[in-house]
């Protein structure tokens, strides 16, 4: 049950629930989600196509070593002063996360290489969590972000994505699709609103 609240707000809870109960319409069925949802012959290719359309960069590499050298070619990475990598063998970390407990300290990070759990071909979204990353601000505060995605971990659509996801504990997770962007000034697309100015996806395998 909920934590104790001031009595007047508990009263509101009862009031709202009873107002709803007295007005609730007759019950209808909850649909199953079974359907032949869209699939793609070449999931990585579809992912790459959508990612490029939404402003992300796609780099397909056979292994981590190739990803590491491809990373070295990216201007934003070469110019980066503060770099965090949480993926073995890809990128040269020069900031030690273990000493940082306040997310505000992440503000000067120029480039982060982090791992994505899986991708969705339909919309080029990549699922990330804070399971092994206590400071989830990292995904959003860095200037440039690279996500490493195993090629075998791309599903077709969002229904398959949610079949993989379990939410049974306190945890943060997000689908990240492309870099941060805005079109709030006369509908002109500007990449790099608050979050990362670029998103590079290294698809490995």
């Amino acid at each position, binding site marked *: 049950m*909920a934590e104790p609240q001031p009595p007047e*707000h*508990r009263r509101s809870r009862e*009031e*709202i*629930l009873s*107002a*709803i109960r007295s*007005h*609730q*319409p007759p*019950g*209808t*069925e*909850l*649909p199953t*989600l079974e*359907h032949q*949802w*869209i699939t793609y012959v070449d999931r990585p290719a579809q992912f790459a196509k959508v990612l490029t359309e*939404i402003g992300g960069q796609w780099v397909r590499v056979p292994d981590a070593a190739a990803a590491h050298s491809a990373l070295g070619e990216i201007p934003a990475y070469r110019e980066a002063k503060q770099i965090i990598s949480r993926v073995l063998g890809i990128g040269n970390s020069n900031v030690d996360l273990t000493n940082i407990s306040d*997310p*505000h300290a992440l503000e000067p990070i120029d480039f982060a290489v982090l791992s994505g759990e899986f991708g969705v071909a*339909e*919309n*080029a*979204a990549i699922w990330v969590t*804070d399971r092994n990353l206590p400071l*989830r*601000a990292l995904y*959003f*505060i860095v200037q440039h972000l690279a996500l490493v995605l195993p090629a075998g971990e791309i599903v077709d659509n*969002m*229904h398959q*994505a949610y079949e993989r996801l379990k*939410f*049974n*504990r*306190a*945890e*943060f*997770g*997000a*689908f990240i*699709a492309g*870099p*941060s*962007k*805005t*079109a*709030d*000034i*006369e*509908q002109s697309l*500007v990449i*790099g*609103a*608050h*979050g*990362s100015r670029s998103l590079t996806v290294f698809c490995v395998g």
Partner: protein
Amino acid sequence: MNHATLAAEFVRNRPRAHWHDTALWFVRAKRDKAVHSLPEWETLRETASAIKLHTISHLAEYLEQFERQATALGATVHWACDAAEHNQIVLDILRQHGVKKLVKSKSMLTEECHLNPYLERHGIEVTDTDLGERIVQLDRKPPSHIVMPAIHMKKEEIGELFHKHLQSAAGATDPQYLAEVARQHLRHKFMEADAGLTGVNFAVAETGGFVVCTNEGNADLGVSLPKLHIACMGIEKLIPRAKDLGVFLRLLARSATGQPITAYSSHFHGPRLGGELHIVIVDNGRSQLLASGEFRGSLKCIRCGACMNTCPVYRRSGGHSYENTVPGPIGSILAPARDPQHYYSLPYACSLCGSCTDVCPVKIDIHHQLLTWRRELAVHGHLPWTKRFSMKLASIVLRTTWLYGLMGNMGRWALRNFPRWLVYNRLNAWGRQRELPPAPRRSFRQLYQEHYGRTTTAGTSPQPGGNSVGDSQSSTSRH
């Protein structure tokens, strides 16, 4: 308020009204393209609609389940009957934590509750962090669209605003440059905020978590830096299962902006390590909507804005002419539900073209509901006397054959012979934005009689009058 009067203001500036129209149609076209990339679009819509209807019919249980689960994850759940209580709860939480500066990500609910001015009155600095929201906040205006809050503004105006408030270069209008200025300014605000507040796109009963969708990442930055996160949601934001998100996330961004998904779809389950998460569940009139069989369906709305982008009236009259947090077609259903006397004119700001119903991802029968509203408003006497009087008059004239004929004759004569100023004046609402067609010399009844009257078998009396009454009723009753 009166929509027509406020819209007239907007329409007066023709090039601008045209520009607004084009900007929104551009978004509508992008939506169409995105929709056509999925063969299962209609199945998705039907599924979404069925999920929402089911949720509405079990809302109390799902709310309790959500509260139970969210609490188990470590969040604190609050309940607010109305806007005042919502604001009070938020202020109390902020005070308990000694918060001086709050960053908000776009939330139409807090807009509806007028949270910003309330908090500001109590000494808390509130910064809206969605770029569009920040622009209208600096301009001291409400958003004119729920997805694109500053769609009514030109880049020149935004440039001027930023020059005044954010010290950007005078005369700058380049969106890239202006967005960069905003980025620097808002990053500063994120860094110094003591708390972050977000809306909720979807709350999941099964897990006690909720999802917030943004393109800018402002919700995430706003709540991952400070320790305190407050999330405010209307009771209708609930969905039963996590897997239902698959349906709604596929529909939302495609309907809103034509994107396959928003850049960030963040799933919050419990507070972050060492932080606090407070969820405020708000009714503010929504449970009353449940009571009405006719308008209940509007609770399915996921606030994608597609109905606004496609609406020929919204596009040409601007969001501010609705004077409601949610403008456009869906706003015209929600607003009179809260205050019929004040918003009586909104259901009339509709051409009944049905385009909104066509695009709505959760299949709300928007234009039917708007038509139903007109009847409701008339039955309950919410129409202004001018409308009531002219309807009464029209009904008498249309019921009385001889009077109808007489008025017809007089009207045709007057239209041909009166000077312009006598025909096109304040009293003639029909002549305001349109030229009346040239009045024919003879009425339909006369023409009919000339052509067929004499050739019909003697003794049968043709009823052209009766027919034409039926015909003209449909056009006259639109008055």
